[in-house]
């Protein structure tokens, strides 16, 4: 296993340094450091309660970390200190996320969900609502462009024929895909980093397969992915790098094959006497 410091800094998209998150006396995330490289799928795995989702919530601004730093490195731009930004600003700087328990807008159609994701672009085009109410802006053209973006992602997630159905009425697997599509629409040209919290949870093997293909397509499009997942089949197949957390600490950070045979990881998953593996 290569120490993280030795990895090339210039290709970094996300840098997490000594991140600690305490809730009262409980330390959910304990001095975790890792980096995610640009154009890679970095998986974050660990047993239940290891602090994966807490770490996610720190990265995406839902929690403010107690200590440590999270930096987003975008090519040709200064690094952004995510740990200092308000939640909605993190999304604007190019970090999109999905949720462990799906959070769509159930009463709005799939298409509307994807248009809400493009709110900031559309809002600027509508002259902060005033212009478009009076009919004085380039809003209609911007909306047509936004619908085009939405249509592209609906096509990529095989949801085009359900575009006008309410999101809450879609089957479970389709809702998972729609949430990913919505995250992908949230920044013009696609987000720099897509954070997925257990996207394969509750999917059948065929749907998991499709999901893996979709994630590889997204990676090929230039969006780096940070992935929490329990489905080891998906993780081992598509990840370029795997970070393992246990009890809030990082216990491994390596390529999938190396992680699979790491005795510490096996011990964490199977208990201390993990030799049976």
């Amino acid at each position, binding site marked *: 296993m290569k120490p993280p410091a030795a990895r090339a800094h210039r290709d970094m998209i996300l840098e997490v340094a000594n991140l600690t998150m305490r809730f009262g006396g409980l330390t959910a995330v304990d001095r975790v450091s890792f980096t995610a490289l640009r154009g890679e799928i970095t998986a974050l795995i660990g047993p239940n309660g290891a602090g994966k989702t807490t770490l996610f919530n720190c990265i*995406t*601004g*839902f929690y403010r970390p107690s200590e440590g730093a999270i930096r987003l490195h975008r090519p040709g731009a200064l690094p952004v200190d995510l740990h200092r930004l308000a*939640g*909605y*600003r*993190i*999304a*604007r700087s190019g970090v*999109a*996320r999905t*949720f462990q328990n799906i*959070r*769509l*807008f*159930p*009463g*709005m*159609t799939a*298409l*509307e969900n994807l*248009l*809400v*994701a*493009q*709110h*900031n672009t*559309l*809002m600027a085009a*509508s002259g*902060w*609502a005033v212009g*478009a*109410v009076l009919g004085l802006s380039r*809003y209609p053209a911007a*909306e047509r462009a936004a*619908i085009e973006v939405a*249509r592209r992602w609906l096509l990529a997630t095989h949801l*085009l024929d359900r*575009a*006008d*159905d*309410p999101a*809450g*009425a879609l089957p479970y697997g389709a809702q998972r895909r729609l949430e990913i599509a*919505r*995250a992908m629409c*949230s*920044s013009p040209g696609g987000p720099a980093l897509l954070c997925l919290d257990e996207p394969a949870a509750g999917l059948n093997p065929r749907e998991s397969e499709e999901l893996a293909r979709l994630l590889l397509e997204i990676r090929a499009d230039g969006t780096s992915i940070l992935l929490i997942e329990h489905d080891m089949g998906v993780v081992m197949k598509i990840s370029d790098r795997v970070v393992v957390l246990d009890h809030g600490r990082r216990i491994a950070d390596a390529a999938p094959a190396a992680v699979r045979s790491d005795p510490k990881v096996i011990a964490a998953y199977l208990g201390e006497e993990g030799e049976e593996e």
Partner: protein
Amino acid sequence: MTQASDDRSGESRGGLNRPPLPIPRALRDAAIAAAIAFGLFAVMVGLRTEVSPTGALVLRQRWAEVAMLCGIVFAGRLALTLWLGRRALRPTTAPGPWAVRLQQAGRFFAPALLAAALVLPIVSGGDRYLLDLGILVLTYVMLGWGLNIVVGLAGLLDLGYVAFYGIGAYSYALLSTHFGLSFWIGLPLAGIMAAFWGVLLGFPVLRLRGDYLAIVTLAFGEIIRVVLNNWVSLTGGPNGVSGIPRPSFFGLPFSMSGEPDTFAGFFGLEPSPSHRVIFLYYLILGLALLTNWVTIRLRRQPLGRAWEALREDEIACRALGINVTVTKLSAFALGAMFGGFAGAFFATRQAFVSPESFTFIESAIILAIVVLGGLGSQVGVAVAALVMIGGFELFRDLGEYRMLVFGGVMVVIMILRPRGLVGTRTPSVALGEKRAIGGDLVGEGRG
């Protein structure tokens, strides 16, 4: 109704063409209903305290009346059960058969309603009572549409909406009596003033959610009323502000003198007091339609969509980079502004404002209009205002019993249509055909 009867209805819920319940079960069901009725009526009707001729308090018992009421409930329930098999009384938020038909007719229904509103002054032949009622209904339609932005679209439960109505009314009243500003200058100022207070209230309050937001807005409504009541040097206290100038027709006053610089004189009409009423009617119609137009336009735009998304899921909005605070504030301010416009209209129509007009019951009525009409539905709110305010007038002959009728109607509507008259949501944009979304999927907002 009770646990036992619910279970039974649950097991018979399966088939579509269920046979009516067998008579013994129907009898038992009716007996349960009668027992519950007895529990309610025994104390409410059966026992009555009265002052005897000697001045002492005596308890009069009216068991005959109780027995009669329970009998009515028993017979009614039995008839209903046998006739309908208890199917028709199941609450539903799905688009029912008549809702689908209404939607098909909706293309004509809303324009028909608008046309009726437009021609009312002409066909009424200057009937003062009808026009005054029309003005009252339209005022509540406008207030309902204004509150619909806050409650129906953004999902923020505002129990103190009347505060903004009051701020608008007093703003115009004071500006016109102290500085002699005309209605057309006072109107936007009143709206801006109300919006300003909406933002001021919103900043500290909008981090609260659901019930807590409702309580704080309720308190805000009361604070405004108490301040209006006690700041005697500015607002005149309980005496209110009187002598508010009547609106003029773009500078031409409505007067009976028939001079050339009055409305009647300028247009060569016979001076008539109904001119002003007709003008006021069209004025509030125009203001209400402005509210409607802005809301409809905004709904199809990012801001309106963000409001609805906020109602559906605030956390997801934050993850998509939507500034939740600003979005909520904009809904609050816009709703307050239209409340302020309506308030300014109220002041100029009455020529007198006092804190008594802005009590909590007004907030409750406006909120009831929005909820009965269906959160977020423009046509539903208009119909609900017509039914509630107009219907309330219709039952004027019933005296104090009209509150009873009113309450009963509200209970029935809420039982049968828990999401209001129009509980469905129409998508703001579609690739193909826009299909209504059932109310069971649409969020109600948690503040």
